[in-house]
């Protein structure tokens, strides 16, 4: 569904990605783990069109090249990202945030139906429906960000650090919902620092270290490898 080859990105003189490659198949949950500054978010940003990849980078989504397309066109194609740090619009209500998620769509009935679906997935948001997003707790904001991304009816959902700064119980909830979303037929590319949880829900995984893919394989296999355990799961193991 998504094929990335020799993706390189640099910020000025600093190279953030040195030509990485990864593949996401239809219906999969693929996770990209790595420490701070490894280039995980940059990868997602490049896929979403927020940063311009270097010449020669290939990003193919559903058979079309999307490298250097503007972000709003990419969203229109069903490739939607829920950004790092949640990025909800704090001055708007939960309702308005969800409406913005459906910006690319104009089928009013479909949007309403999807909103009900999203709210049933995140019952907490239903209670806060008319509250402004800035007053929500961190976990609720994360839920809102995911619900909002779902409003665009993504076929491939990019999640950037959904567990960042959340309490362990909430993290459990979030990851359960990620599985549910995937069960509904949405492909997911998940970027995480919490390797323990990410490897639990994912089918396959890639390990990113300072701009390079250093390991890849089935999630269970990586979770079992000593290298990953030592480097990324020490806290959780």
């Amino acid at each position, binding site marked *: 569904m998504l094929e990335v080859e020799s993706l390189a990105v640099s910020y000025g003189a600093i190279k953030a990605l040195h030509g990485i490659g990864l593949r996401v198949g239809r219906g999969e949950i693929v996770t990209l783990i790595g420490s701070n500054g490894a280039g995980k978010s940059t990868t997602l940003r490049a896929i*979403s069109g*927020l940063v311009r990849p270097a010449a020669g980078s290939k990003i193919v989504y559903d058979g079309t090249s999307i490298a250097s397309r*503007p*972000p*709003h066109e990419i969203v229109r194609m069903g490739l*939607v990202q829920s950004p790092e740090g949640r990025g909800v*619009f704090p*001055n708007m209500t939960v309702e308005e945030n969800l409406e*913005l998620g459906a*910006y690319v769509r104009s089928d009013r009935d479909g949007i309403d139906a999807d909103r009900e679906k999203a709210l049933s997935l995140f019952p907490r948001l239903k209670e806060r429906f008319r509250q402004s997003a800035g007053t929500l707790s961190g976990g609720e904001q994360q839920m809102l960000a995911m619900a909002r991304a779902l409003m665009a009816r993504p076929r491939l959902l990019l999640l950037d650090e959904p567990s960042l700064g959340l309490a362990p119980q909430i993290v459990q909830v979030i990851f359960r919902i990620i599985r549910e979303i995937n069960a509904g037929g949405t492909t997911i590319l998940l970027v995480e620092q919490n390797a323990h949880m990410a490897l639990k829900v994912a089918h396959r995984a890639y390990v990113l270290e300072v701009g390079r893919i250093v390991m890849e394989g089935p999630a269970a296999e990586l979770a079992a490898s000593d290298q990953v355990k030592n480097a990324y799961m020490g806290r959780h193991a």
Partner: protein
Amino acid sequence: MDSRLGPAPPRAHWPPPRAHEQARGYYPPFTVLEKFLQTLMDGLAVGSLYALIALGYTMVYGILKFINFAHSDIFVLGAWISYATALFAGYNDLDPAAAGIQAAPFPVWVLYGLGGATFVALVVAGIPKLQGRPLSESARALLLGVTWAWACAGMALAARVLQGAGWSIVGGGAILICSMLTCGLVGFTLERVAYKPLRNAPRLNVLITAIGISLLLQNLGQLEWMFGTRPQGMPSLLPDAVLAEIGGSRPSPDADWTVQPVRIRLLDVIAAGTAIVLMLALDRLVFHTKIGRAMRAVSFSERNAALMGIPVDRVISFTFVLGSMLAAAAGFLYAQKYTKLGQTADTVWVLLGLKAFVAAVVGGIGNIRGAMLGGILIGLLEFFGVAYLIPQLRDVYVFGVLILVLLVRPGGILGSTAVEKV
């Protein structure tokens, strides 16, 4: 004074009417209440125009975080374009001789020339990007620009036909729309050509560019084939009548001059009414429509807005067009109220725009309702200051309040109180 001679005359008015009031045929009203009412009306009328201009400043600041110094020139341009279009449409009732010399060439130049200039500019900007893709962003922008330019020309022609048919009021409305469309197009072009390439540049650079554009508009406007360097009288395009009079006309105590009653003029009502309708429409647009939500999203974070599938560039262009159109409307209405048009670099007119900017800051820059409130407040402050304190200091009141507000509550009245960290 002997009270047996009859009722004591009211207290003499102080200060006596000033030269500019004489020239306007308007004398200060007499009693405390009359004076208050007159000041209140003037303040509200001008304040609502400030509010219209302030909206443009505040919207652009909200989205791009820079002060668009060229905005006050769009306001002046709006007044001049409505003047040019009025001549084009045959409303030259004030000075037929001057109109005969000037009427034909420059309105046509402005309307069609701008259409052509946009065309060329967008083709130049668009060609490198057009290769390989049939209808890209640039191509759409180009098409939109050209359609827009023709819409302006169409409105001007409509104004001409309407005026010829004796429907001068409707024609005035057509001229207002024409002026708004033209300024919208100018705003659109400026953003695409000058501001868009600087989207990620330091803010100082954008500010300097804005100053450059301001200079450009002022000096282009002063060219002989544009509007020239002479002030002009604005033909009256809107109906005017005295709706109500408060107090009667009577001689002053020393019988030197006649005290005029407070007049509620139809023109003021129309001007303030138009401004309020436009503001309500904008408020509705921003807070209750999809594009409005998109604007607010972009102003909070361009990156996150893009991730929602919002075409950020288009929303920014839209914001510029909207702001410029409101400024043009303010220009039109101001020129109707005070019928003297200063040359495009006239500091008095440019300063009007700057005061509207002050209004935006006082209300809380980036906050749309704040801009409306700030505009009205600044208008009232200015007129009450002139009427009750030292009249020559009208600009000092405005800028003094600006500094006070910034020191006490830097975010403005309705803005957040956070002091900006660069």
